[in-house]
Structures are given as structure tokens and as C-alpha cells.
């Protein structure tokens, strides 16, 4: 009995697969009238929830913009970080708008659009210090969250600088900004979104984002099934249009604030 059920299911599956190959993803989305986006909702300010527990954030707005461009309704599907790509592969979402770094390893599984956002490392300094750039941190006491990429890189710089420079590791991001506000630290390096959120929160007085740090920039792209060229092509143009029309700047100002990071890599196409 089980065997027959399985055979019937496989036959049915073959039938469905046959019909599904006719129209591509872009057609499917438009005809279904619904765009399902994978969004990470515990990653402020990219994705979070408001006081009514409705999804908000940069990625949520970006998904809504994409749906509006396609003329369909957006559906936000909450996916934790490790669930983003499985959700796409099991056809629970059409596109990932989930701050996903466009690594070559991931690109073996899914197709990425051109970058739609970039996480830069920035220098946040206490007011009253003469720190205006990354290099001017030389000779100062600096700190970061122990074990993070930026802490390891910063400590290397500090060891190289010598000359009164000191590095202090902290357990959490909040500890770092507290130390900065209390004058135990002169400056710190962190992700731009984190720095801006802490400056804006008003919990830490007398600190400001002063410059970007010369560390690797984390570019993130939208992603869809890698064989859906029509849809991926559309996503590339959509990201381009968001920047061209000033919508990207607008959303960056709304959710992050500060200098808008460039999404192009100097000296390279795409």
C-alpha cells in the first residue's frame, strides 16, 4: 500500500514539474499576485518588529518596494539566519531580502543580485578627542567586542602603532559604547548600522561616528534560485533603480543614518 502511494506521489510530482517548467519565476510571481520575501527579523535596523509586533526595517521596506515594482503584494516570511537559503530551496519564499553576504560559497547554491546594501566598519569616537580618521586613533586607548572580526583587525593595528596605543576587549557591544561614553575609551570600531543605532539611541552621550575604517566591506545581495535568470536580471535592475531614484539614500537615512556607503567596488564592474 505504501509502495503504491509513493509511486503515485512521484508520478504526480513528475507531472507538476513538467508544467512548472513552462513559465519562469518572474511570471509565476506576477500571476500569483504575491511576492514572498525571506527577511531576518532579529537584526535591527535591517529587520525587526514594531510595538504592534509588525515587521519593520530596511529589508522590510526593500521587499515592499520590490513588490510594488512588480505590482504584487508583499509577504514577509520571517527566517532566522541559517534558514534563509533552505527557505528558498524548499520554495517557501521567492526571494531573500535578508542582509545576505554574497559569498562565492553561497553562490554555488543560490543566485545573487548586485549588492543592495553594504556593512562598513566605522570609527566612533568620544567628543573632545582629536580623532577624525582611522589613522588618528594612533596613541589612543581603543576597544571593541572581543573575538569579533573588527576587534582582531583593530588589535593588530594597535600592536603595529605602539607608541601609547592600547587595545581593550569587551564582552558586549553595549559595554564598549558605555566605556566610550564614560571616557574609558577614546574610540571604537564597529559595523556602521550598530554604531549609528547606538549613537541615535541616546543611551550614550558625547559620542559620534567620525570616519570609516579601512576594513573589508561586507556587501550583501538579494538572492533567488540560481537558474531563474529572468528574475535575477530583474533584481539587478531593481537594485540599480533604487539607487538611481534616490530611494536607497532615503531608506538609509530612515533606518541607519550617516554617510551612505558606496555599493560599487573600485576598479571592477558589477
Amino acid at each position, binding site marked *: *500500500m*505504501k509502495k503504491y502511494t509513493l509511486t503515485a*506521489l512521484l508520478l*504526480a*510530482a513528475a507531472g*507538476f*514539474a513538467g508544467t*512548472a517548467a513552462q513559465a519562469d519565476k518572474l511570471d509565476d510571481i506576477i500571476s*500569483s499576485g504575491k511576492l514572498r520575501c525571506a527577511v531576518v*527579523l*532579529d537584526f535591527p535596523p535591517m529587520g*525587526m*518588529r514594531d*510595538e*504592534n*509586533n509588525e515587521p519593520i526595517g530596511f529589508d522590510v521596506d526593500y521587499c515592499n518596494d520590490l513588490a510594488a515594482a512588480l505590482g504584487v503584494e508583499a509577504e514577509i*516570511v*520571517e527566517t532566522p539566519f541559517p534558514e534563509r537559503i*533552505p527557505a528558498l*530551496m*524548499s*520554495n*517557501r519564499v521567492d526571494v531573500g531580502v535578508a542582509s545576505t553576504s554574497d559569498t562565492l560559497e553561497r553562490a554555488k547554491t543560490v543566485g545573487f543580485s548586485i549588492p543592495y546594501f553594504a556593512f562598513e566598519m566605522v570609527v566612533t569616537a568620544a567628543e573632545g578627542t582629536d580623532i577624525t580618521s582611522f589613522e588618528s586613533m594612533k596613541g589612543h586607548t581603543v576597544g571593541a567586542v572581543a573575538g569579533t572580526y573588527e576587534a582582531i583587525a583593530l588589535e593588530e593595528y594597535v600592536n603595529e602603532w605602539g607608541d601609547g596605543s592600547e587595545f581593550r576587549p569587551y564582552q558586549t557591544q553595549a559595554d564598549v559604547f558605555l566605556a566610550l561614553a564614560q571616557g574609558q575609551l577614546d574610540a571604537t570600531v564597529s559595523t556602521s548600522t550598530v554604531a549609528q543605532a547606538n549613537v541615535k539611541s541616546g543611551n550614550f552621550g558625547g559620542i559620534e561616528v567620525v570616519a570609516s575604517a579601512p576594513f573589508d566591506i561586507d556587501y550583501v545581495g538579494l538572492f533567488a534560485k540560481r537558474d531563474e535568470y529572468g528574475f535575477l536580471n530583474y533584481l539587478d535592475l531593481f537594485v540599480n533603480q533604487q539607487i538611481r531614484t534616490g530611494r536607497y539614500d532615503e531608506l538609509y537615512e530612515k533606518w541607519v543614518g550617516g554617510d551612505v556607503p558606496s555599493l560599487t567596488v573600485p576598479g571592477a564592474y558589477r
Partner: protein
Amino acid sequence: MFDTALSANDLVFLAKGAGITIVVTAISVVIGTILGIIFGVIRVQLGAVLSAPLTLFLDIFRSVPLLIQLVLANAFVGMVLQLQLSGFFVACMVLSLYTSAYCAEIVRGGIDAVPTVTRRAARSLGMSWGQDMRYIVMPLATRVALPSWIGLALGVMKDSALVYVVQVTELLKSTQILITRLQEPLFLLLICGAFYFIISFPLARFGGYLEKRWSND
């Protein structure tokens, strides 16, 4: 001394989650019980050898963790069948079959508990198989099976917390959403536990009441 950012709005949000938990549980327990009775009777009637394929099928549902069943069923529906079923539908489907697998065992145990001599006596009085099942086996077996069935229903209600993996925002998932936003895990889990208690307590008491009433006749 005690300070929380939890608003009335959030309590309504939790209550909605609790509502989903109740609906998923109710659907799964009703369908699961009906299927369970059918499967249980088939197993008893056909005997061990003839019902072996069914037994194997039910054993799969009993031995594979529910979480894995949900993820696999959801992936199967999406990838192989290419159907866009809602997570709610998949959750009810899997949970119903899961319930039916356990319920079949309870039903089988209940029927086996009815003395063979009693059933033979019924048949020698000229009762048909249907009459024997309806008037002799059902009343006796139900009394034996009820406590386990109540236990199963309560268990399924708590197991329904796992359906969050197929994007169903039930009670536990609602709590997790609030924990992410408000960062008050212990307080919120306490409230979540209270909600679960409020839902399961009446069912447990109702089971106790039936047991008591039926044992006095």
C-alpha cells in the same frame, strides 16, 4: 520594583498565538482521533501479519521526531509536489497523522482490553460484528482508553509548539518574537507557561470528571 515593557497590545498578540495553538491542536486531535480509531480497528481486525504495512507506516510517524517530520513534509510539499500550501495546512496534516499513529495504539489497547468471552457472548446472542463493536466493545474500550487519550491530547497541544518551523506563529513563537523585541525572556516565558496551563487545565479536569463519572455506574 517590577518593571516591564510588555503592553496590553503584546498580551493580545500572545492571546492570538494561544488561539492558533488551540485551533491547530483541535483540528489535529479531531482528525487524528478519527483516523486513529479507523487504523486501530483495522489493526485488530486484520491481525499482525496482514496489517504489517499499516503498522510500519504508523511506526514511522511514532519514531521520527515531530520536528523532522514537519520540516521534511514542508520541503516535500514545496520542492517535490511544487504546491504552495500554507504552513498551517502542512502543520495540521503532519500533526493529525502523528496523533493518529499514537491514537491507533490506544484504540488497539482499548479493544484488546475487552474480554474475548464477552465479545463471543455478544456474537452468540446474534449480534452482528457492527452491533458487537457499537454496543459491547465501544463502551468498555472507551473507559480503558480515555486516560491515555487525554494524555495524548495534552501532549499534542504541547508538541504543537514545534509547528513554528513551518511558519505558523503559535503561542511559543509569539513569545519568542516578544523576547527578541523586549529582551525579558524569563518573564515572558512565565506568561507563556501560564497561557499553556490555562489551555490545558480545563481539558485535564474534563478528563478527570469523565473518568470519575464513568467509574461509578
